[in-house]
């Protein structure tokens, strides 16, 4: 494996709030030029970790290093990080220009250079010409773009983004993701991205950290996490998944990994419950005892079937987990 420089390292970090909530024993290495996403349901501790990196929360124990230097004792303004907050926090009493210029002025950048940089970054987020406006005169999505531009302008070596696109509508969101990916690879910065949207995490990240209840469940590339989920929670949180209970085991199989034929005798027998045409493929729901198994099949097969037909299913690829009492798959 190629030699890669560690940009950020979190070492056995614990952050507990006074009420006992928080995250415990967090370990993670993020390499230079990587986009790593924290993915997990709301309240699992994503923002907490991000804020300890940015310097807005003190860690209870453990260490965080950037480029090998411990940063836990530094105030936010001394850290080489820039954060885009969940609530886009533009300064309401400053124009867009002043918002963007504030950090540059602190760095004593000459005016001409500053103006050019601001112009360039406004164009980058498609917000040219808004220099004289106040944040209150922009929509939420527009404010979010300005907030992103404000952080990017400072060329941080580590960019922290806390659900930056969650308030945007689907189309702009898609655009913003692509922009972010492009900007990241152009500038070569390291990005930590927080989201509860698995699709966003999959499309954006080099690696994903799947979180649940203050703990890391799995760290891996999108493909690793999609193909080999390590826990039931990961399996249910990412992509579509069928869960079939067999005694004390639960089989997790994706709809595209079920092959279907008329008749009986393979892994699981059942009857066709519904047939839905979704463009170039067909979703077949098969009733197998008390389970309903979703299968993606092609037109030639589905055209030969009708509701109530007996079919048999073969799992070409699946994961097996110990059945967890009280486990409810996310979003199913």
């Amino acid at each position, binding site marked *: 494996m190629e030699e890669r420089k560690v940009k950020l390292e979190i070492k056995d970090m614990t952050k507990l709030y006074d009420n006992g909530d928080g995250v415990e024993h967090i370990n993670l290495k993020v390499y230079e030029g990587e986009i790593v996403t924290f993915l997990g349901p709301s309240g699992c501790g994503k923002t907490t970790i991000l804020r300890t990196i940015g310097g807005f929360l003190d860690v209870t124990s453990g260490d965080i290093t950037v480029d090998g230097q411990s940063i836990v004792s530094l105030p936010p303004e001394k850290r080489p990080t820039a954060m885009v907050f969940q609530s886009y926090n533009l300064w309401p009493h400053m124009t867009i220009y002043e918002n963007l210029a504030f950090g540059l002025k602190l760095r004593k950048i000459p005016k001409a250079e500053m103006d050019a940089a601001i112009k360039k970054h406004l164009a980058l987020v498609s917000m040219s010409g808004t220099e004289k406006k106040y944040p209150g005169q922009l929509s939420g999505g527009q404010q979010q773009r300005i907030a992103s531009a*404000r952080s990017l302008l400072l060329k941080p070596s580590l960019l922290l983004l806390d659900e930056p696109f969650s308030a945007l509508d689907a189309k702009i969101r898609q655009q913003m993701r692509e922009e972010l990916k492009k900007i990241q690879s152009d500038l070569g910065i390291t990005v930590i991205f927080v989201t509860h949207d698995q699709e966003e995490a999959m499309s954006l990240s080099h690696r994903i950290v799947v979180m649940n209840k203050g703990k890391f469940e799995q760290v891996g590339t999108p493909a690793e996490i999609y193909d080999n989920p390590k826990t039931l929670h990961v399996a249910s949180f990412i992509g579509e998944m069928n869960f079939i209970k067999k005694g004390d085991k639960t089989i997790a199989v994706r709809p595209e990994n079920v092959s279907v034929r008329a008749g009986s005798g393979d892994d699981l027998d059942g009857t066709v419950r519904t047939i839905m045409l979704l463009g170039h493929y067909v979703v077949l729901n098969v009733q197998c005892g008390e389970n309903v198994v979703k299968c993606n099949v092609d037109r030639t097969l589905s055209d030969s079937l009708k509701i109530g037909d007996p079919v048999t299913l073969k799992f070409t690829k699946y994961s097996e987990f110990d059945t967890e009492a009280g486990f409810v798959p996310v979003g199913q």
Partner: protein
Amino acid sequence: MSKKAKQMLVAYGLVIPAFMVVMLTVAYPILAAVIKSFQDPKTGEFTWANYTYFFTDPVQLKNLLYTLYVVIMTVVIAIVVAYLLALYLRFTKSKIAKTIGTLYLLPRFVPAMCAVYAMITIIRDSGLINRIGLLFGKDIHLGMMYHASGIITMNLWFNIPFAALMITAGLGAIPDSIIEGARDVGAGKFKTFTSMILPLSLKDVVVASTFVFMSNVGSFTTPYLMGGTSPKMLGIALFDQFNKYLAYNRSAALSVIMFLICSVSAFVYIYSNLKEKEWEK
């Protein structure tokens, strides 16, 4: 009668009593006072004399300047102290801060007379501080009675809680994320204060200042009980003109002067409200 006309009648019927009360008790006396202030006490003819008196007579001029001195000192000290207190309450999350946060308004609930007498027993030359000093063999004479410093101290007792209340509300409305954003891009504590916290709370500071200013220009109880014989604050001077010298025309002129002084701060208040609109909408 049409339905609309009836509704109109009811509406006017409801408003007229309040309107009449205001006209009779506020508008009429003000108008009468303004007219009176321009009248010669004997002949009733138009004159500026009632006004020029207060700006040319050395004693009256001194009273005017003395009042401005006391009021401005009160405003400046009360606002600075209240701002520091409000900053502490906003950014400290300790138990002590919470306790202070609930107790600091208490002075407002003490009746003015009681508070003034209580203060007098502490600061007068034979008061509490003097007694404590004597225990340690020091005979302390603060000299605050019948002196501007005593009045200002008393004014602070009344006005700091009030100003702190207004400024605390203003600071409370500044979200943490605004401050965190500033720190994030590299601003230290001082820079964050000067470029975020101060501008975002300036309006509340101005409003608090104007209220403290206005309520102290015409103050009476404190200077009456604690003030000296000369110079006097305008409230006492007005009392003298009206009750001692029965100089009603001069009294009217002095009232108008005090009103005009207050209206300066009213103007500042309205102006600052208008100016804010630029980025608020």
